[in-house]
């Protein structure tokens, strides 16, 4: 860039000044955009929280700002936490999620190890197949699955959900585990092979510990997906007794006539708490898992 019209020294100083003001401007725009986005992004959960602290009289009161709470009360939360059906939803979600996460991780770690390292007839084909499976949305197959689960007599049962949820979790977890395993240098397994390790020993003593960040990321993914699953439970479960949280809150707390908004919001927030807590504590793993699909493997 030239500063031919001004004298050399002035040119340099003038340039420096404009550069820094340009930077300041860019920084300003950045912060303004981020603050604006944060307000929009956080408004719904904040409003849910505000509502959850209101008694029903205050919810129904149309005067005044709905975004403010005048008489905060924990009444909604205490009601919910002593409400048997709601606790049952929680328990159902917990059982389903723990089972699904365990099944998913066993299946995908074993398969990813075999696909990433051992190669057998058709392994390349299977790896592509896994990725394609990941691209099939749950809403495409829920009707045939409804028939199949019904045929097995597992409709209206949490075990029916435990059976079908792996379709949501296994493909992606396998895919990112293949990526993590593939990034382990080949010399490491050769060294282990020479040191005398068998394949199962190699998986247990080398691959699993070394790929721990990937395993944590995949576990978080499996957890959040099975906690948030909505289509399958909505289709397969209609008895409140067997409902997980998502459909339980949506279908049971929302009664057509009495809109107990405070309680609904409290229920939704409580139901969202486990994934949010995990996110808060394991944000880096969470994000690694999120971006792994496109950047790894």
């Amino acid at each position, binding site marked *: 860039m030239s500063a031919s019209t001004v004298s050399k020294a002035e040119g340099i100083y003038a340039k420096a000044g404009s550069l820094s003001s340009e930077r300041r401007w860019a920084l300003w725009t950045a912060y303004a955009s981020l603050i604006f986005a944060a307000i929009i992004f956080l408004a719904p959960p904040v409003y849910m929280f505000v509502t959850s602290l209101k008694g029903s009289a205050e919810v129904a009161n149309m005067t005044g700002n709905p975004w403010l709470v005048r008489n905060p009360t924990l009444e909604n939360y205490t009601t919910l936490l002593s409400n048997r059906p709601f606790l049952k939803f929680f328990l159902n979600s917990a059982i389903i999620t723990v089972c699904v996460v365990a099944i998913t991780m066993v299946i995908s770690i074993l398969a990813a190890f075999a696909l990433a390292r051992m190669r057998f007839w058709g392994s390349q084909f299977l790896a592509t197949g896994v990725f394609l499976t990941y691209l099939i949305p749950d809403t495409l197959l829920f009707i045939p699955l409804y028939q199949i689960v019904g045929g097995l007599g597992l409709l209206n049962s949490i075990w029916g959900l435990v059976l079908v949820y792996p379709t949501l979790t296994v493909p992606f977890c396998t895919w990112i585990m293949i990526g993590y395993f593939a990034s382990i*240098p080949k*010399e*490491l397994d*050769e*060294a*282990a*092979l*020479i*040191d*005398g*390790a*068998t394949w199962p*020993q190699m998986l247990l*003593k*080398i691959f699993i*510990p*070394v790929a*721990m960040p990937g395993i944590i990321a995949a576990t978080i993914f499996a957890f959040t997906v099975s906690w948030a699953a909505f289509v399958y439970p909505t289709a397969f479960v209609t008895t409140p007794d067997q409902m997980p949280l998502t459909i339980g809150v949506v279908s049971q707390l929302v009664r057509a006539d009495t809109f107990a908004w405070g309680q609904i919001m409290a229920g939704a927030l409580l139901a969202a708490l486990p994934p949010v807590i995990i996110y808060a504590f394991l944000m880096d793993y969470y994000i690694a898992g999120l971006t792994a699909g496109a950047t790894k493997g």
Partner: protein
Amino acid sequence: MAQVSLRKLVKAYEGGVQAVKGIDLEIADHEFVVLVGPSGCGKSTTLRMIAGLEEITSGDIAIGGTLVNDIPPRDRDIAMVFQNYALYPHMSVFDNMAFGLTLRKFPKAEIKRRVDEAARILDIAMLLDRKPKALSGGQRQRVAMGRAIVRDPKVFLFDEPLSNLDAKLRVQMRTEIKKVHQTVKTTTVYVTHDQIEAMTLADRVVVMNHGVIEQVGPPQELYHHPATRFVAGFIGSPAMNFSPARLEGDAHALRVVLPNGTALPVPEHRAARYAPYVGRPILVGIRPEHLTDKKPTDKRNIADFPAIPEVIEPMGMETLVHFWMDGHEISARLDPTCPVSVGVPITLAADMDQMHIIDPATDKVL
């Protein structure tokens, strides 16, 4: 402790590409053999076949008299040091070294004794609790060697172990490896692309090119009596100068005539060897260290050699001079006190006792 034998060893990949084209090699007990050659010459593949990491297409490998062709790596009783060290990142140094013994269910006390002994030899006793991530390159290298030593295997295999280190550390670790070998005396096969590493470490050097062995021999023999043009050019740094030439004269007064007309007399005792090639095109090779400014007392086997320096590289202990002759770059190593400047003609002395004549048809040194 064991000898290693390779018989007609071949490695072919799918598609018919042959990485190793039938090599024979006998490695004696306690011997330190270095496989050296440019990348893609098949040296690493050979080592990996000895380790059992690559399947053998045909031929035989025997370790300590036992045919190991079909024995998986863990039962071959070998240890290997990798270029990137391949330390288990989640284990401490102690666990890294103990891993092979743990898998073989050695008693705890024995493992500890062996690891401590190896750590003492390698001077890494204070690092045993650390993770590999907390180690420097040289320390990782030592741990990788320690992992091999504790196993007390029949054979050590090294795959370019020093390539990831910086130049200074590489020299230091080279000495270290030699010292360790002198202590434990385990038969060693060592792969490198660096001919200096090969020369300094080896009892015998195996020069490989395009999947075949060009020459096997002790370092001095390879340096003074290369068998082929490839070995002549590969061993030695800076590399040997080559120029096309013709042989003229008769068995009593043989001369090498360069394309620009310079005639270099051939020493009498070598004349008989070259006589059949008189009048035929040949390739003459001479190392830069035998192309000097000095005027030694024995004038008989010295030939004068005119040159106009184009690039001058003072190295401290010597000065490298590069000049062009008929499109070939020629280097000479001069005494640092010798006054040279670019473009000013000088006369060099070629030590004709040290020159090599190559038949371009076969690339064999005559």
